[in-house]
């Protein structure tokens, strides 16, 4: 009996040692000196893709590393950590979450240790508290128990209200918290050294934009974002692009959505008609259109009705 228990314990120990040693690295590209990005696949989060659908990345300064978003599962987070460790031994000082959606924060637990400060919009703790448990339930269906059981909602302890600079050693990151737009807790990160803007989901390319905040606020934010002195953008989803050219598709989609919905409301149509018809002309420009457009139209309708 003792013998069997010991064997079992050894087996578990062995398995966990192997899994740590063989932790695969997330594939990353150095898009600017010392700045690495993993390009998420343009899909919904599933068991098969480990939830790795968002762009995540890290920035290496002279003294420390900052991580921008941790991915859609703790497994992805661990693989991101392995990718960092393969490139630098410098300490990870900050994990910055661009907002509270699951594909950006479900990997946080992979970085939970004493030396790391989690950074987010001042509204992010509230968003995680009010939305997080629903995300965990909802994604259990598509991602399964194995990936979801280890997810922990790790709220930020360093909150950004307005703007904040972080120093990684001869490398300054300018963080900016935005009024409600894509969500009500959007944060952008500008690496001033290379002119690279991590826009989080304030910027979508290819992947249909997702409205979970305020459409009017998002269009206003796009106006202000275009003035950010960056050379390139890492969008929350889609390819790294020139700046501010990378905003054009999203702006056109959101403006079309808003004007279609205004017309529907003006004609006295019901909210369901909006889900069926608004922004239909945009269909061919985007992936996952049927997964998100009707939802955007529903949310936009209930906002624009109050104008």
């Amino acid at each position, binding site marked *: 009996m003792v013998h069997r228990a010991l064997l079992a314990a050894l087996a578990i120990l062995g398995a966990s040692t192997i899994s740590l040693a063989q932790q695969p690295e997330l594939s990353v590209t150095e898009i600017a000196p010392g700045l690495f990005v993993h390009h998420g696949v343009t899909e919904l989060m599933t068991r098969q893709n480990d939830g790795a659908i968002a762009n995540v990345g890290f920035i290496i300064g002279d003294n420390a590393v900052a991580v921008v978003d941790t991915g859609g599962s703790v497994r992805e987070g661990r693989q991101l950590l392995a990718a960092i460790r393969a490139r630098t031994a410098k300490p990870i000082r900050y994990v910055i979450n661009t907002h509270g959606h699951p594909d950006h924060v479900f990997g946080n637990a992979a970085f939970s240790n004493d030396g790391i400060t989690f950074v987010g919009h001042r509204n992010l703790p*509230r968003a995680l508290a*009010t939305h997080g448990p629903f995300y965990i339930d909802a994604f259990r269906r598509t991602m399964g128990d194995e990936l979801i059981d280890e997810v922990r909602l790790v709220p930020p302890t360093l909150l950004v209200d307005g703007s904040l600079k972080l120093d990684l050693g001869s490398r300054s990151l300018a963080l900016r918290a935005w009024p409600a737009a894509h969500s009500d807790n959007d944060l952008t990160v500008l690496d001033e050294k290379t002119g690279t803007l991590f826009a989080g989901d304030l910027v979508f390319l290819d992947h249909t934009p997702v409205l979970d905040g305020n459409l009017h606020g998002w269009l206003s934010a796009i106006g202000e974002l275009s003035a950010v002195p960056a050379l390139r953008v890492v969008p929350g989803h889609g390819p790294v692009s020139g700046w501010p050219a990378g905003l054009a598709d999203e702006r056109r989609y959101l403006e079309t959505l808003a004007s279609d919905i205004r017309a529907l409301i003006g004609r006295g149509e019901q909210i369901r008609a909006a889900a069926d018809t608004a922004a239909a002309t945009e269909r061919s420009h985007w992936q996952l259109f049927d997964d998100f457009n009707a*939802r955007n139209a529903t949310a936009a309708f209930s906002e624009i009705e109050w104008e």
Partner: protein
Amino acid sequence: MFGLHFRLLCVAGVLSGITGATLVQAAGPDAYDPWPLLAQDIFENRPMNDGAGVIAIEMPYRAEDAAIVPVTLRTLLPLDDSRRVLRITLVIDQNPAPMAAKFELGPEARVSEISTRVRVNNYTDVHAVAELSDGKLYMTKTYVKASGGCSAPAAKNADEAKNRLGQMRYRQFAKPGQGPVSGFREAQIMIGHPNNSGLQMDQVTQLYIPAFFVNELRLWQDDSLVLAVEGGISISEDPNIRFTYVSNGAKRFRAEAKDTEGHLFQHEWKIDDSGI
């Protein structure tokens, strides 16, 4: 009576939120059918008749946005039927507070269609139960798949939700062909209110944020009741009700809403007769 049922269900929801809503939902949408117990609790085990030809419910098969799922209730009784619909109860079986709303139809208003928006937390049956003047209950149901993605049945923009508190809007819609009877009207009432579920924990205090929602709404044309609604946390933020009725020639439309903190919101509008 409704209030008591609602509170009981609401407390049950809060408890499951504390002890493991995740576990309950992880068991899968088909593992447990709450309807028999809900029917017992809400309708006191009264017999349910088939609602075909009496009451219809329409919802999208998939909830696109978990916080805003449109629902339309329609009465199907022919104009010459001697019975009338007294009230319609809307039950979202798998929600933390399943009793979403109870609509009492004004005795002379001939309301035939009611649309509103609800929160849907999970894959769920949604029941509509009509009580007719013959004293019998008639039930129909539909099934809704919860939304996927980063959609949650909670506020998208929590600050804005508070800013609109108590604002009321009334809108009357032109209806081509004037509907089945003369004086047919279609109107909409919107109330700015967070309609907060109270099922979320405050990160700082570790206490549950108290529920804060519109629990009563009454609508009149002059002094004749058109519709009275008892609602709960399953009704979406900024409660929005669109309905048909038959005008009694009134010149004013009045609305009165109460919430769980005792606020009273009142408004009245002149009815626009021009071409509507």
